[in-house]
């Protein structure tokens, strides 16, 4: 029962990944694409933690930490570039 609900929530998160990616393809400006990339990163961080619990290996959660840190640095760098150049 619990495993089925976990699988359903993984599929729903995968559908969210597809929707955000469609916005990344369509977005008329660069800022729209950065917003879509932010959402993609957050959703895939959730997927990484889900995979870590399915496999039962705790080292994967460190990768989620690195992922969040790197995405924060990248998005702040892009925002700073768009605002006034680096």
């Amino acid at each position, binding site marked *: 029962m619990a495993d089925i609900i976990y699988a359903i929530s993984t599929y729903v998160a995968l559908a969210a990944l597809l929707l955000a990616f469609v916005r990344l393809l369509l977005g008329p400006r660069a800022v729209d694409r950065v917003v879509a990339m932010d959402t993609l990163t957050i959703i895939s961080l959730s997927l990484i*933690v889900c995979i870590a619990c399915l496999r039962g290996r705790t080292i994967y959660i460190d990768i989620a930490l690195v992922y969040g840190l790197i995405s924060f640095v990248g998005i702040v760098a892009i925002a700073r570039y768009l*605002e006034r150049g680096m």
Partner: protein
Amino acid sequence: MQIAGSIITLIGSVFLFLGALGIFRMPDVFNRIQAGTKATTLGTLLFLIGITIGHTDVVPHLKIVILILFILFTNPLSSHALARAAHHIKTPLAKETVRDDLAEDEKREDREGSLE
């Protein structure tokens, strides 16, 4: 305990889906930032909490707590920087927008600066 954790995870993934749907449907950059950040922050927090409750034997709790605190601090911060940059490069607003307080404030500051 596992059933409760899985239901919390399902609620979190529904919030993630709603955030992505808001990014897909909203007409404007600022509306997209608004819809994307809030819904996905809450959705990710619920997702992580649900998985931690469901798998108490494998997941180290301290790392999950650090991850949750990190997301809670950095996600609004990055979207604030992004919205500020988007306003600074004069991204066009949607035609339903009724007021823009930041532009009025900047205009008033410019006027006071030129008077001095």
